[in-house]
């Protein structure tokens, strides 16, 4: 057996400074509203915290930039709240001094959100919000933000995250992004475009990162959320690239003989696990990004692919058909022997870790249908979370509470999400063609605008 030590990758790895001209990033957010979706709750529970969200005062912008509407949609979607109907409100306070807690106890609200959005100079807005505990009659949070119009949705998602954290004790993941691949049939005679897109976690504000007539695959976020690794067939075969989201600058990462696929970032962002068949068979490798040193981790005549790092960086889980059909295995991130993790059913693939490292989301075949499932690593408990038939590409939200995935509805690829306990499901309805391969970003470390 070949020793698994680092050796320098030989053939044409680096083509730095490869600048790709991208679709322009519009400065007017409402011009991007075309890609906007509606979210339909396909399975829900009414056991969340009853919360009243008063429409914010002075809001002049209509949806999709209406702050209180965005907050309401976020909290509804999370499944952790029962958002009370505005029809039942007996008052519409916007300021602290206007709040009468009795008005809210009457409609059985446990939490109350009020706020305002005031113009604050050219193109700027000042957003204020307060969150109250209705029974204790206390304020739980209150912040003021001064931002440009194109940041209003981001502020709304930040407010949703604060509310989520104050009321559930867990971080929210609303102020994050999703990356995904679309395939759009143009008008007759125009090419079919594959696009790598990035949008807000609720699907709004999509931006095209890459557009190609050849397939695109496997978007993967860098841990700092600034770059995406992906697979492009633009040279008529699968090669791996890394691209900056902000300026579109990209680098060729792997163009070895055979397939170059399934990029996965190490938690420290310094290495990329990959599937390469440069030695003849699909095996898992780790590429150190600073010096391009490549290390082969698997040595098995079967297919080994779909690596995913444990959050502590010590392990990789991956898919292998070494026992016949595809199953999930775990090995040290330095290579060595692999331990089989899945035994339920004859097809388990594309596992990825939750942020706490305690469970995996994966695709599992159940009675001929491909469904999103969760495996608890501590107890071995296996739970099928969906009941559709062509589900794939599960990706955890950074708080581990929601899994976004791709499925098929009436012949079209769509995105959907399911809560990690399987109780709440939603369908993202994009206006674009087929949508697939969602990847949820890490927490947004962008400047927070709180004051």
């Amino acid at each position: 057996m070949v020793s698994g030590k680092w050796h320098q990758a030989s053939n044409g790895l680096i083509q730095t400074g490869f600048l790709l001209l991208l679709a322009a990033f519009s400065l007017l957010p409402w011009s991007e509203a075309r890609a906007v979706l509606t979210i339909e709750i396909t399975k829900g529970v009414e056991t969340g915290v009853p919360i009243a969200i008063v429409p914010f005062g002075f809001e002049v912008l209509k949806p999709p930039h209406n702050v209180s509407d965005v907050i309401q949609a976020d909290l509804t979607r999370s499944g952790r709240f029962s958002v009370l109907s505005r029809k039942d409100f007996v008052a519409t306070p916007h300021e602290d001094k206007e709040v009468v807690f009795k008005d809210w106890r009457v409609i059985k609200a446990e939490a109350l959100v009020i706020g305002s959005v005031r113009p604050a100079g050219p193109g700027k807005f000042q957003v204020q919000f307060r969150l109250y505990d209705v029974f204790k009659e206390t304020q739980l949070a209150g912040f003021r933000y001064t931002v440009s119009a194109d940041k209003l949705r981001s502020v709304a998602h930040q407010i949703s995250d604060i509310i989520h954290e104050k009321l559930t004790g867990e971080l929210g993941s609303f102020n994050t992004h999703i990356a995904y691949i679309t395939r759009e049939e143009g008008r007759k005679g125009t090419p079919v475009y594959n696009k790598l897109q990035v949008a807000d976690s609720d699907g709004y504000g999509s931006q095209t990162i890459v557009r190609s007539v050849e397939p695109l695959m496997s978007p993967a976020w860098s841990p700092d959320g600034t770059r995406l690794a992906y697979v492009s067939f633009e040279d008529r075969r699968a090669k791996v690239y890394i691209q900056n989201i902000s300026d579109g600058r990209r680098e060729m990462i792997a163009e070895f003989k055979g397939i170059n696929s399934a990029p996965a970032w190490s938690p420290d962002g310094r290495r990329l696990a990959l599937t390469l068949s440069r030695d003849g068979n699909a095996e898992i490798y780790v590429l150190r990004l600073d010096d391009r040193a490549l290390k082969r981790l698997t040595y098995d005549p079967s297919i080994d692919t779909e690596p995913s790092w444990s959050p502590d960086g010590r392990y990789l889980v991956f898919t292998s058909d070494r026992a016949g059909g595809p199953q999930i295995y775990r090995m040290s991130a330095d290579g060595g022997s692999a331990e089989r993790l899945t035994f339920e059913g004859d097809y388990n693939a594309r596992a990825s870790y939750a942020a706490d490292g305690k469970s995996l989301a994966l695709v599992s075949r159940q009675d001929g249908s491909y469904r999103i499932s969760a495996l608890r690593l501590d107890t071995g408990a296996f739970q099928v979370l969906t009941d559709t038939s062509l589900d794939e590409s599960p990706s955890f939200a950074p708080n581990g509470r929601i899994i976004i995935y791709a499925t098929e509805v009436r012949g079209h690829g769509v995105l959907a999400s399911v809560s990690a306990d399987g109780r709440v499901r939603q369908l993202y309805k994009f206006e674009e063609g087929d949508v697939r391969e969602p990847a949820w970003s890490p927490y947004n470390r962008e400047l927070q605008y709180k004051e």
Partner: protein
Amino acid sequence: MKSGSLLAVSFVLSFILAGCAGEEAVKSKEDSSRGTPAETMPADGKGEAAGSGLSEQEKQKAQKMADLLAQHRIHFAFDSSSIDNESRAIIEAHAQNLKANPQIKVALEGNCDERGTREYNLALGERRAQAVEKLMKVLGVAANRVSTVSFGEEKGLCAEHNESCWRQNRRVEIVYK
């Protein structure tokens, strides 16, 4: 690409016909002892001209070869890269064609149906292409004449979600260059 493969078919046909002509003396003796099978052929002027001087058996052989070479898709069972007998005959014909025409090269493009995961299917498509490549090498085709590529489930021929569509998509395409 299409004209290239037609060209390839005509190359191999001329090869077969030439090869058969050399064996004619021996075979025609056997044939004449069994009667005159040529008369059972349809009265097709074109076929008659192409096959002139050939026995019925040889014509059938050439026709079978041409039929096999006209097929450029090798199909597979789900999650499998095994080659069945029907597919083997197609691959043998293309291997013979490659050996007879040293100037031609082929690309083997592996594909999968939509079921299962995309990255696994990319590897599975490659394994299918490699299975065809391996057989061609066993049949005597030089390694530098054949290349493989996998498109996984990204280049389906058929977009419906049923077995008839899935079967069409589980394939290796033999593409003449």
